């Protein structure tokens, strides 16, 4: 590369850095202005001391944990069997796991609400539907993370070794396979966590307590507290992504998701 070009590439990079940081800096500074005339963490204290925040945020964390558990229980055995025993079903499973990319979340929720709000399928008010919906939304990431993990280990040899030592299928799956793909599962889990915590549409239309709808509501009500919440939310996303890149070192996979 010639010298003159370098200035140009620096220029592009600086624009990118500004685009990335300016909104965050503005939000952070704004979040410190809750007390007149001085910078303080008052807005953060207000947020954390507000029972409504604690309630909605805790709810989101619980939804996220349930989603991760359901995801692991559902996808690990499936991905394992597809790899080992029923490769014929691979195409169908891959099609299904990619469907959430084709069906926008709002359309998916539209279908859920309409399908499950009339007898005999009246479960629109049940948390089961919410967790199932989250599991679907995180499926492309969770399933793929698990499948990538399985590709990296010798599933067949591990299974045969387990069998010859007299292990049953349950212990092969959960004592041998699961620990061997824990890194992949962890990165899928943290990505799911970030998705569920930030997800707005499902909880909004299924009328369940959750962080994002609460924050959207607070934007209409208050000035400084939503800024503090935006920073908290950003810090969480950052932490989740940081942990993913820590556990999955050297694996520069595009981790993309979230409810836009």
């Amino acid at each position, binding site marked *: 590369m010639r010298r003159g*070009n*370098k200035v140009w*590439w*620096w220029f*592009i*990079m600086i*624009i*990118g850095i500004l*685009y*990335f940081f*300016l*909104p965050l800096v503005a*939000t952070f500074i*704004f979040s410190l202005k809750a007390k007149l005339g001085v910078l303080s963490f008052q807005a953060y204290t207000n947020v954390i001391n507000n029972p409504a925040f604690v309630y909605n945020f805790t709810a989101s964390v619980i939804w996220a944990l349930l989603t991760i558990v359901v995801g692991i229980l559902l996808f690990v*055995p*499936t991905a394992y*069997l597809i790899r080992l*025993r*029923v490769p014929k079903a691979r195409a*169908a*499973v891959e099609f299904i796991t*990619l469907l*959430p*990319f*084709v*069906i*926008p*979340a*709002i*359309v998916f*929720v*539209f*279908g859920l609400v*309409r*399908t499950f709000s009339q007898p005999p399928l009246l479960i629109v008010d049940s948390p089961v*539907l919410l967790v199932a919906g989250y599991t679907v939304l995180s499926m492309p990431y969770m399933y793929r993370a698990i499948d990538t993990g399985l590709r990296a280990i010798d599933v*067949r040899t591990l299974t*045969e070794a387990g*069998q*010859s030592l007299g292990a049953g299928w349950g212990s092969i799956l959960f004592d041998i396979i699961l620990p061997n793909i824990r890194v992949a599962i962890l990165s899928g889990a943290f990505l799911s966590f970030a998705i569920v915590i*930030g*997800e*707005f549409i499902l909880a909004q*239309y299924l009328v369940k307590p959750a962080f*994002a709808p609460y924050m*959207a509501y607070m*934007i209409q009500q208050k000035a400084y507290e939503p*800024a503090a*919440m*935006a920073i908290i939310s*950003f810090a969480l996303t*950052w932490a*989740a992504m*940081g942990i993913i890149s820590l556990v999955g070192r050297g694996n520069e996979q*595009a*981790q*993309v998701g*979230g*409810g*836009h």
Partner: protein
Amino acid sequence: MTTFDEKRDAPEARPARRKMSWAWLGVMPFFLFAFIFLLYPSSTIVVRSFIDPNTHAFTFKNILALFGNHYILGAYWISIEISLLTSVGGGVFGFLLAYAAIRGGLPKFMRSALMTFCGVASNFAGVPLAFAFIALLSPTGMLIGWLRELGYNPYFHGFTLYTFWGLSIVYMYFQFPLMVLIIAPAIDGLRREWLEASENLGASSFQYWRYVAFPILLPSIMGTMILLFGNSFGAFATAQALTGGQINLVTIVIGSQISGDVLGNPGLGYALALGMVVIMALAIIGYTLLQRRTERWLR
């Protein structure tokens, strides 16, 4: 893994037939789950798009009504415009950024820093993103304040954060990082030998781009832009939180259709959603085809 490997199986402890059905049984929970919570609800949308809400008979009326409704056509048009603008804008800028970090001769650490930032930024969307831009670009926002002190208030010149241009700026925040993440491997695939070879043959920098690099990268740039198009076309939370539902996007119309029948015709609501799925499906197919073309050269 070869086909040979796939076909070899674990030791035969049980009769082959029973084992096969057992394995199929093991993947059933997944298919059952997918059917109940994904396939069936989604097919509801498709089926009901073709059903007359009053007579319950098969009809094309809902689909045809889409094209006769100015409100709906307007919503599609704005959604498509904003997605085109942010996918091309985000695509071009994301490409330049990725190229700067990978081949621009910048310090090595810039690349991994950029990747991490982009991973976070492409996941940082929805409500908090909307608020971050309110803090920056609303009439009392930080940047607007700075510009006002310089004697220029964009709000006196037709700019608002809460309409088309403002929303486009916000969408760009998750668009260009996605471009960087997806296009980086393609830029890595550009071999240095190609640049050296074209330089040895006397090609100018422009000729190298025009006849070598650009044609190789084009399918992957186009494919990723299509993906960005879908990314912004399906976006809802950001627009809802930013404008309070005041902007006429397809997703926003579907959102209000969920809460109540704002279109005054349930069938039309389903057809509206179906139209979205069709456009998204076309985008994903386009992306897949172009991605396949890319792999011929890069790898």
